[in-house]
């Protein structure tokens, strides 16, 4: 039964290896050209999907999807928001409009965020 143990060990290693990963897909729009990386943990406004971002100084610069790889275990809301922040800051966005994806039948928190650059609004200190 040595071979059975080896298979079990292999599967365990595979599961542990996969479980910490999340599926992160960043889509960069042409409008993001010229925006500088704002650094990890930058100041970012999180708004929910019902927020109306039609401010004339706001522009869509990209969007990011954070979801399940199929075997993700560490995929709670806090982790997902952290990944969104990381992607947004790297892109140079200052606002993320977060929409939780429904109907995925996944136990993971999955979200897609619209990333915006609202330079004027940010300077005015709007929240």
């Amino acid at each position, binding site marked *: 039964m040595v071979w059975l143990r080896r298979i079990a060990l292999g599967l365990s290693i595979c599961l542990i290896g996969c479980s910490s990963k999340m599926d992160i*897909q960043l*889509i960069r729009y042409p409008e993001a050209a010229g925006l500088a990386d704002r650094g990890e943990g930058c100041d970012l406004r999180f708004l929910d999907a*019902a927020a109306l*971002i039609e401010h004339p100084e706001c522009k869509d610069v990209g969007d990011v999807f954070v979801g399940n790889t199929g*075997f993700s275990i560490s995929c709670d*809301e806090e982790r997902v928001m952290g990944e969104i922040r990381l992607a947004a800051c790297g892109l140079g966005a200052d606002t993320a409009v977060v*929409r939780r994806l429904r109907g995925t039948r996944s136990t993971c928190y999955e979200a897609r965020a619209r990333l915006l650059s609202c330079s004027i609004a940010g300077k005015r200190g709007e929240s």
Partner: protein
Amino acid sequence: MRLRHGEVFAFACGSLVLAATGCATAIHGPMQKVSIRSTPPGATATILPLDSRVTTPGEVTLTRRSVYTVRFEKEGYQCVLAYLDRRSATAAFFNAGLFFGTMRDYETGAAFALVPSPLDVVMRPLSEVNAADAGRCDFRIPVETVYDDGTESEYSRAPEQNRSVGLRR
């Protein structure tokens, strides 16, 4: 009718291969054909991040594993940004917990379905748009992912027509 050992072995091997292949991979494969339409037709739809273009109405074949943003542009109309999201495909549930099959479906992307399909948007003539908004794309989000009203695969007309409710959790 009695089965011989060889037949039982062949059946077991066949079942194992099917289980390892993944039901969704076997049923609909890792690619999905998505129809892209607009009103009026004849708009250029750019599929990001692939940066591939199609004139509406048209069809594109995309991997189910990714999410996409489609940018519609047409002379005299405000451009539109629309999302193609992914959701779990029903076919993946036939794996019924079989590890290798499930793993294979996620790996190939066959475990997912792209929504909405068809992707259909209505573009607004620039004459009906405020001057301040003319240079910015109109943004559409799938209603089904925001509201719990049973609506499926339908895009909101425009962001300002969305109900002002918080993100449901």
